[in-house]
Each structure stands twice: as structure tokens, then as C-alpha cells.
């Protein structure tokens, strides 16, 4: 009886060992090691002042092993980024930037990673209070790596830096500059994901600048260009909110909704829009009735 149990267990163990051995160089194995190294990093990151040198070396070696063993995998690229962040964490900014430059040299065609590497390099200059050099890095992303996601975020990130430092003038100036940047993207890349994101960010910029009429126009541009986007309902709600609360002009919302229905008469959202138009008209009439007659 014991033999009958022993052999199946032995088979399972050997089979598992075989599969483990065969998959030892796979992306999955690399991911596992990366998650393990990250957990250690995150745990020690709670108290940066008290990381013992041995632990720091252990985390560093974990990333270096992944970089050495799993060359060319997604985990190797992430390990390089995380290693640079580890250096930044220990305030070794030069080492961080050296590591980041290796990513750019090794993977010049991988725009997402290169953009991320340059962004992290910018962060390292920010941590050293060298804003000019950080800005140069961020503008490099916008220049060289458009239209990846990181590049599209940069104008708002930069404006956010100025706003945090109470420099509203520079923040607004950058936001106006961003509008040209986004317009160029969606005009040069029509019907693409980047164009959709750029249009959405244009709306955000107009909101930050308090340019409500332009915000409305931008949202209208999005819903006309992307009538079946999953964000359509949210866009319509935003149109109503801005027209009614910000511009005090409910007719503007009604006009946009009516134009949309005329352009897309078969759209399944048409009954909802018609209902919303009625709601706006009713609210508007009630507001007029409540106003004191002069």
C-alpha cells in the first residue's frame, strides 16, 4: 500500500521538478523574482534611514541577478528601472542616471521604456533640486517620445510642479503651451489612441485654466470624433455640468446634444440624450419661474 502511494507522490514531485527546470528561464520565472525583490524594497522603503547596508546590497543584488539572467525580457527592463529607483532612494543620483542611460542605449526602439527612463532621470534631478535639468529631461520626452503615454502626461506634470511651488504664472504659461502640443498630436495622428488621449488632456488643461467655453468645445470635439467611446456618458454629463453650472447657459448643452443626435440618429444612447434634454429644459423653466420678476 505504501508503495502505491509513494510512486504517485514521486511522479508528482519529479514532474513538478521537470516543469520547473524547463521553465527556469521563462518570463514568468523572471516576474516571480522581480515581485520578490520589489516586496523587499517596498518593505525597507518605509524606513529609508534605517536600511542596513546588508539589506540594501541584497535588494541590489536581486535586481542585478534578474538583469543578468533574464536579458531581453520585460522583467529585465523593469528591474533596471527599479534598480535606478533604489539608487535614487539611497540618494545615489549619479548611479541612478547611469543605470537609466543603459536602458536608453540598450533599447532605443522601445519608446515606452525610454520615456520612463528619461522621466525617472528627471525625477532624480528634481530630488537634487535641479529643476532646470529636470525640465530639460521632461521636455526631451515630449520632443523625442511622443505619442507614448508618459509624453502626453508631461505638460500637466510640469504645470503641476509650478503650481505646487505657487508659481501660477509659469503653470498657466505651460498649460497654454500644452494646448499646442496636444493639438499637434491629434491633428497628426487622427483616429488613434494617442489622439483620443490628447483630446481628453486638452479638456483637462482648459478646465485647469478655467476656460469653460473652450472646455465645452473640446468635449464636443471628442464626442463627435469618438461617438462610441466608453467615456461617452461621462462626457455628456460633463457637458451638462459645465453648461449649466459654470457657463449658466443650459441652451449650450441642449445644442450640443441635439447636434450629436442629428449626426448619429441611430446611436443607442439617443433615448437617454432626449430624456436629458427634457430634464435640462424642465430645470431651466423652473429656475426661470423662481427668479424674481423685475
Amino acid at each position, binding site marked *: *500500500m505504501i508503495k*502505491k*502511494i509513494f510512486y*504517485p507522490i514521486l511522479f*508528482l514531485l519529479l*514532474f*513538478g521538478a521537470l*516543469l*520547473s527546470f*524547463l*521553465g527556469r528561464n*521563462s*518570463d*514568468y*520565472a523572471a*516576474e*516571480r523574482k522581480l*515581485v520578490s525583490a520589489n516586496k523587499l524594497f517596498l518593505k525597507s522603503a518605509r524606513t529609508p534611514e534605517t536600511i542596513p547596508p546588508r539589506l540594501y546590497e541584497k535588494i541590489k543584488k536581486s535586481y542585478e541577478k534578474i538583469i543578468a539572467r533574464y536579458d531581453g525580457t520585460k522583467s529585465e527592463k523593469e528591474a533596471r528601472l527599479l534598480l535606478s529607483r533604489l539608487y535614487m532612494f539611497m540618494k545615489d543620483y549619479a548611479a541612478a542616471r547611469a543605470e537609466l542611460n543603459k536602458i536608453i542605449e540598450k533599447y532605443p526602439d522601445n519608446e515606452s521604456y525610454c520615456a520612463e527612463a528619461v522621466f525617472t532621470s528627471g525625477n532624480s534631478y528634481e530630488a537634487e533640486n535641479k529643476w532646470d535639468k529636470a525640465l530639460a529631461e521632461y521636455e526631451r520626452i515630449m520632443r523625442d517620445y511622443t505619442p507614448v503615454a508618459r509624453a502626453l502626461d508631461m505638460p500637466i506634470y510640469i504645470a503641476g510642479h509650478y503650481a505646487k511651488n505657487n508659481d501660477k504664472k509659469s503653470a498657466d504659461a505651460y498649460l497654454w503651451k500644452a494646448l499646442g502640443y496636444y493639438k499637434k498630436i491629434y491633428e497628426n495622428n487622427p483616429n488613434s489612441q494617442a489622439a483620443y488621449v490628447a483630446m481628453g488632456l486638452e479638456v483637462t488643461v482648459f478646465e485647469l485654466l478655467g476656460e469653460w467655453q473652450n472646455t465645452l468645445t473640446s468635449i464636443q470635439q471628442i464626442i463627435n470624433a469618438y461617438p462610441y467611446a466608453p467615456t461617452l456618458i461621462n462626457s455628456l454629463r460633463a457637458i451638462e455640468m459645465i453648461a449649466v453650472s459654470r457657463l449658466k447657459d443650459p441652451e449650450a448643452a441642449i445644442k450640443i446634444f441635439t447636434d450629436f443626435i442629428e449626426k448619429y440618429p441611430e446611436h443607442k444612447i439617443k433615448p437617454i440624450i432626449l430624456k436629458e434634454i427634457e430634464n435640462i429644459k424642465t430645470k431651466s423653466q423652473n429656475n426661470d419661474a423662481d427668479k424674481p420678476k423685475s
Partner: protein
Amino acid sequence: MSKKQHTALSILSTSFITMINHPVIIFPFVLIAFFELFSLEIIYFIPRWPLSIIFAPVIRAIWSEQALHYPFNFPVIYNIFYAAQIIIYVFLGGYLTAVSSATIYHINENKPTGLRIMLKKAGRQYINIFCVALLLIVIYFLIREGYGLFIKKFALGKIGSSIRIIRGIKKVLVLTNQYAVFLFTVIAETMLAYCIPILIVENKKLFAAIKENFIFLKKTFFATFIFVLAPSLLLLPLIYANGKALILMDKVFPEVIIMLIAGGIIFSLFINAFIITVLTSFYLLKRKT
């Protein structure tokens, strides 16, 4: 202690001793556990080469690309293993349970208990056993989905939410969801408890066996319910742990899900072996009297 309780306890203890003295009863469940552990092993290694060549497109199509990456594959492992477990149970589990039941019957009758003889004996009733196993799975699905729908509509819905007592009841129902499903499953297993022993011992056809099962249950429902419930209660800590698996995954390490599933397989091996021993022994005892 009443006479009934005394008899129920003595059946349980006698069956336990029988199982210990004749480990050949457990062996079919060892085989079930082997197939389940083997399927778990394959499922665990799906994201890696070489199994990824075959299985990755399927996982991508049904779930997403993320389900092939560490540690996001672990919640998916649960779902895939659950499906595998059902297939194993329907095609093999019921049959091997019948092999165990046949072994107990032969021990009782002082007949030979060689594995080949038992496999052959149970094999004659394979189609009927398959149907019983399938029926049990269908009933289990109906319980799970039916109760799930009830929880969704009532406990998570707006009905009666303004009344404090009903809000409290809803909260309890949501918190005890998995235990309620456990209880209903035990009741369902009780309802079909003697189908396999009857198929093996009396060598009847499917519908005749089901009919006799209900006739037998009419007189012995409470005792049968205890025979199924008592050992199954040992699974409650595992049910609780499985409910917290995603939290444990984050707090400890993701592989804890594999440990919980494997632990459940091994635990169930002994519990199921014990349950079939009790039920078959009880049926044989009552059949004589």
C-alpha cells in the same frame, strides 16, 4: 445519550476503525487526489514554457494576458482548478468512490478485495455511477448559482434596506454565504448518499437505485445527514481560509493559494473516504436488519 445517538456514534467509530484497519478503502481516493494534484500542477505551470505554448492562447482568450503573469495568475488558478475538479469528479471521482464502496462491501462479506476485482465490479456500473456524479454536480451548480442569485437580488439589493433588522440579516447572509453553500451541498449529498452503495451492492439500474435511495433515506435521513455533515465540518477551516485567500496572497505570498488547494485535496481524500465507509457500512447494516 439516546439509542439513536449511540448507534450513530458507534457507526462512525466502527467505520473509522474499519478504514484504519483496511487502508485499501482509502486507495481509490488517493487516486482521485493524485489526478487532482496532477491537474493542479499542470495549471500552476501553464504560464511557463513549455505548457504556455498550448495553454497560453486559451487563457488569453478566456481571461486576459494578465492572467499569464505573476502573481495575477493565482486567482485564475482557482477557477481553472475548480473546472478541472468537476471534470475529474464526473468522469473518475464517482467511479473511484464506487470502487471504495465495493471494497467495503467485499470486506463485509469476507470476499477478496484486490484492486482489479473492485475496478471491474464498479466498472460494470460506470454509466450509472457517471449519471449519479453528474446529477450531484448539476444539483451543486443549482445550489451555488441559485443561492448566489438570491444573495445578489436580496442581500445585495435594495429590498428592505431601510429596515434595520433586514439590513442586519442581509449582512449576515453575505458574510455566511460560503457556509450556507456548504450546508446546502451537504444536504444535496445526503439526498443522494446511498445511490452509489446501492448501485454496487444491489447491482440495480440507475432509476431503481435512486428510488431505493429515497426509500432508505425516508427512514434514516437524520442519521445520514449526520454521517455526511460530521466529517465534512472538518473542511470548514479550509473554507474559511479559501474565503480569505486573496488577502493571504497579498499578506504572505501568492503561492499560499496552491498550498490551500493542495491541503484541501489531501484533507478531502480522508474525509470522503470516511464518509463513503460510513454510508456503505450503515447501508449494509440496515440491509441485514
